[in-house]
């Protein structure tokens, strides 16, 4: 299961059942959840039950699955229950039985057979667009927007450069709220989570960002209103202006986007006010294209239409998109790392170069290749920003050049070990939880207490000069303080 679905699961499962009920009223959502989120076995269960008139006894369903796959069966069933798709019907007269929950069942039927006036699959515009755009344009647009975001994360300025759009305040804020970057002074520094994010495939990245968006929709949209103002002031105002964005509206819209067709323009007429408001943000991500905010139509980009494709289709589509992202680079792998720590990357993509620069010292750039080396210093620097050695190794492994893939293992073991060791080298701090006693008025009081702490064996560290000591437990000391004879006071 890909990281992206994991991520969206976590979010979805945290939602209350009532939200699910409302979500499943949209056939597009039901279909999207079915296609995108369910493993094959769960899908089979759903399909089998979809037109079943009566609840299916638990024992019957269990018979469908071979005994040696019980684990998979239980996983699938538990997932369906958690997503409020399946429920157990308890009837005193008959055995326990499974049935699909109602709004989901109806919506999925509608989605499969068509009909109804829910318009949850979007309404194509009925008038031709005077400023019509084609698929290539949409791909370029999406690529520029998305690369701009990634660029911003790896700390390239991206201003006035090709291949990277200026990132909006809203997106910047979102990345920070999501913990993907940290703003240190005027510098943007990528965090460990941010680096993991970079290493994901693009569809997973989109989902991750969208979940952040769901969680923080208010603040992000709010940013927009203040984008021309001083960013610091607008931050202060977030809590004041609570914009009532309904998560169900947001989610339904995202699931709807996944069912739209690339290259087709859609009308805004059926969208809720929340959804219209979202368009601005989605445009910043490169998920939809709108010529201008007041335009009455929008185009989903490839980032949108692949949101809810099932895993198989997703891989190829996203691979295709990754290709576009890499701008001519070898999609299979482009990095060669040698046993003498020299690194060569067949790439011209500024983004990939920026990622490499996070953990290596680059020295030479050719039109189609960059060369450098990794060193203790370069790895330590990366580790200081929170990137882990395993992430670096996995990045090198995932993007290893086809020539390297002929080797088993792919990466030279000595280099892999060394990268890990460079990390371990810096992790020799041992933390001990406890309590610090300080600000003693008299040396006598300090001595007395510190000595007592030592006697009872809880003292870890003391500094007589600074009248401070550190203990693992404080209960005994507190008792001692209470019980000691009150002298003069």
């Amino acid at each position, binding site marked *: 299961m890909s990281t992206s679905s994991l991520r969206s699961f976590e979010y979805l499962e945290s939602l209350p059942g009532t939200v699910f009920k409302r979500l499943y009223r949209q056939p597009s959502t039901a279909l999207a959840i079915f296609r995108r989120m369910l493993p094959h076995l769960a899908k089979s269960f759903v399909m089998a039950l979809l037109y079943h008139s009566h609840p299916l006894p638990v024992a019957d369903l269990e018979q469908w699955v071979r005994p040696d796959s019980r684990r998979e069966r239980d996983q699938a069933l538990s997932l369906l229950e958690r997503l409020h798709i399946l429920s157990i019907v308890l009837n005193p007269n008959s055995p326990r039985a499974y049935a699909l929950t109602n709004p989901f069942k109806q919506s999925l039927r509608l989605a499969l057979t068509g009909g109804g006036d829910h318009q949850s699959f979007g309404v194509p515009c009925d008038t031709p667009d005077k400023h019509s755009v084609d698929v290539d344009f949409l791909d370029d647009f999406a690529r520029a927007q998305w690369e701009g975001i990634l*660029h911003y994360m790896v700390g*390239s*300025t*991206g201003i006035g*450069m*090709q*291949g*990277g759009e200026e990132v909006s305040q809203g997106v910047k804020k979102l990345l920070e709220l999501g913990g993907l970057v940290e703003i240190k002074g005027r510098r943007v520094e990528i965090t460990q989570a941010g680096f993991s994010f970079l290493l994901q495939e693009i569809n997973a990245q989109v989902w991750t960002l969208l979940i952040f968006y769901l969680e923080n929709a208010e603040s992000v949209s709010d940013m927009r209103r203040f984008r021309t103002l001083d960013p610091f002031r607008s931050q202060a105002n977030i809590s004041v202006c609570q914009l009532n964005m309904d998560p169900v509206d947001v989610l339904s819209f995202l699931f709807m986007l996944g069912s739209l067709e690339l290259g087709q323009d859609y009308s805004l007429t059926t969208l809720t006010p929340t959804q219209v408001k979202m368009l601005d943000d989605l445009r910043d991500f490169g998920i939809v294209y709108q010529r201008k905010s007041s335009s009455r139509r929008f185009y989903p980009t490839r980032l949108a239409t692949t949101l809810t494709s099932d895993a198989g289709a997703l891989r190829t589509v996203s691979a295709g998109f990754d290709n576009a992202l890499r701008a001519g680079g070898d999609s299979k792998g482009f990095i*060669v790392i*040698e*046993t*003498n*720590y*020299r690194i*060569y990357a067949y790439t*011209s*993509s*500024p*983004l990939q*170069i*920026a990622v490499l*620069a996070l953990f290596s010292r*680059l*020295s*030479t*750039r*050719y*039109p*189609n*290749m*960059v*060369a450098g080396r990794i060193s*203790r210093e370069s790895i330590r620097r990366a580790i200081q920003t929170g990137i882990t050695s395993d992430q670096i190794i996995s990045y090198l492994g995932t993007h290893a*050049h086809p*020539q*390297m893939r002929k080797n088993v293992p792919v990466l*030279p*073991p*000595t*280099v892999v*070990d*060394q990268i890990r*060791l460079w990390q371990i080298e810096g992790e020799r701090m041992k933390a001990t939880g406890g309590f610090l006693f300080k600000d003693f008025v008299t040396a006598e009081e300090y001595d007395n207490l510190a000595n007592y702490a030592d006697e009872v064996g809880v003292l870890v560290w003391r500094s007589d000069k600074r009248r401070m000591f550190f203990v693992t437990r404080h209960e005994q000391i507190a008792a001692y303080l209470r019980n000691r004879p009150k002298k003069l006071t």
Partner: protein
Amino acid sequence: MASKRKATQGAVKASRMSRISTPGSVTPRRIESDYSHGPSGLPDQRNTIIAQNVQKLDISSFPYMLSPGIIDSASEYFQPGQKRDLTALKLKPDHHNRPLWIDGWGKLTLENFHPLAPRVQDFLTTIAEPTSRPAFLHEYRLTTHSLYAAVSVGLNPKDIIRTLKLFLKNEMPPNVIAYITHCGKSYGKVKIVLKSNKYFVETADPAVLQMLLKDPEIGPCRVQNAEEITTSVSTMAGLAIAGTKDAADMRVAERVEDQVERNSRVEEVYYAALGEDDDEDDVQDALHAFQIEDEKVGTVAQRCLALLYPALQEYDFRNDYINANLEIDLRPATQIRPYQEQGLSKMFGNGRAKSGIIVLPCGAGKTLVGVTAACTIKKGVVVLATSNMSAIQWKNEFVKWSSINPDNIAIFSSDCKSLFTGNSGIIITTYSMATNSRERAHESANMIKFLQSREWGLMLLDEVHVVPAEMFRSVIGTIKSHAKLGLTATLLREDDKIEDLNFLIGPKLYEANWMELSQQGHIATVQCAEVWCPMSTEFYEEYMKANARNRSLFCVMNPSKFQACQYLINYHENRGDKIIVFSDSVYALEAYARKLMRPYLYGGTGNAERQEILDLFRNSQHCNTLFLSKIGDTSLDLPEATCLIQISSQYGSRRQEAQRLGRILRAKRRSEEGFNAFFYSLVSKDTVEMVFSSRRQAFLADQGYAFKVITHFKNIEKTPDLAFATPEARHELLQKVIAELESKSWKQEEERESAALLADGNLFYGPDGKPSRTAVSGAGDRSAKKIVKRKSGPHSDFFRSLRRENERRKKLA
């Protein structure tokens, strides 16, 4: 002949008086003889001229000026300075079919997995210096010296550029084109050839000939009445390198043909691309020469350099009827390996002997290359070895491989002085004996006289990289030989001293690829590992308190290092390996060996005992581990050894690391299926050893060796009788080490070791037991250069002036 001798004896005196360096592949003695009569202020002036000229031949005079062709957000990572943005050099549309990139500083990056790679490799080793040869992408660098070497084996700049263009993915930077053209214009155009004991200035370019003749300084040097001669270029056709000529061994002959065929195929590759008639080549095939007066050779050579036409020296030994021939041939059973042949064919490429350097890994048979060269030239030979021990080994090798009468081999070392009887022979001496300027005993003085009074056909210079430049100059200036062949495993690069070497001996003719030789089974496959030994808090505290010199003792006496060593010995002895343990610290050597009850050898060991121990190690099944101090780094030949453990080492010396690795590269068992030799370097964690260790490995890593880091041995605690297993034992050891440091008795042992190294004439370590000044090699990266600068002492006058000149220019710019 008599008059000639006189002239050269004058030169001897002159070169002793003056410490001027003499860059230029010409015979230096003659230059100096001319100038010894001149005013005293002149040498400085001359150095400036030379400095200017040499600088004109450096790529830094041809800066890369193109601004980046791609400007995007990644450009900031490649700002000028050390970073290089070459996006201006456009890719060819079919760049996938070509394996090579070039940058604006002469660096070439080769896709070693490309189908064309083998052919390109051949070409690149001819024109460039290999700097990194791991598995996938190899790096080479065009340097003044590599181009010099290329030109001297007969490539012209046009060919070089065209062939490069053929293989390059990207466009060639104009400055590099200009640089190659410029070097080509100067290099290899003029040769000074000693033929039938007459000196000729020879060139293939009539224009150059005319220019030289019209030159106010060279013109008058021409011997009047002698005709200008035009001959056709002699080819290798008439000559077979010894060892390949043996009709008895047809396979060898076939190999030569293969070799020639291969060479011609390589040439085809780079001439086919030219798509040009051979007309021009025909014209160039004619050689023009004029005779010059013997005494004026120096003047001519120096003037040639000033005119930016440094003269190459070649020895037409087949037409040397003056010097007596030497009865020497390879034994019929002796076979030389393909790469040795390749190196030699570079040396004898045009039927004459070129001077130069051949670089082969330790254990790859450098000696045999020297012996074969001697058997090809068949004239008197001088061998310069690095120590007394190695002098004796050279003699043994000559007897082993060639048919020479052992009486015709003389040795001149501090503990052996013998002469040969015939009118030609081989003399083997050490650098320190040949250059010792202190008062000599009568016997030695006679030997020196003997050495210096003769004209030798070939001078073999062993381990050229360790010999200080001053020593070189003195050796080359005082001993007269027609051809010089330098042999080494680790040729220093980017080091001023190497400039000296290239000018004093000649260009690097050949450099073997370690990994390739290892894959072909010529040298053993080695698994390298660095073992991290944690230091206990107690030891570490003492370590932190100690001064830099004493710290190393704590590093090596670290109990967990001892345990690791014990574990490894145990493990490898059980596997049937023969183990050498190296320690630079004599105290530790003794402590380890005594505790583990294994024999040890160091400088203070008596000769008889040494021999006994070595025999025991070689022959006995009960003696499988030997502890060796620095004296074992180089000269000892122990092909039985299959495993090396290094417990203490000399700072960041890459050379020592490579040299020690060389001890197991020639392992007898190397040809066994799946055989691996092992090289362990034990370092104490969190100490200076860690830093030095990575520096030491740099050279080998660039040759493609991978060092595995081992942080923990499984079941080490189950080692029988594991030493220092209890805290008490460790504490006791610590107290002992502290007491040892206070008593300073260990220093006496170190002194004895140093004295022994000195007595042995060992050049690898200076009188203080530290590596000699040239020992820290630079393989092209900046960190290495920094070390060189810090550690090397004052440079020669010549290079000082060169540097001054450079700095002045920088200021002006």
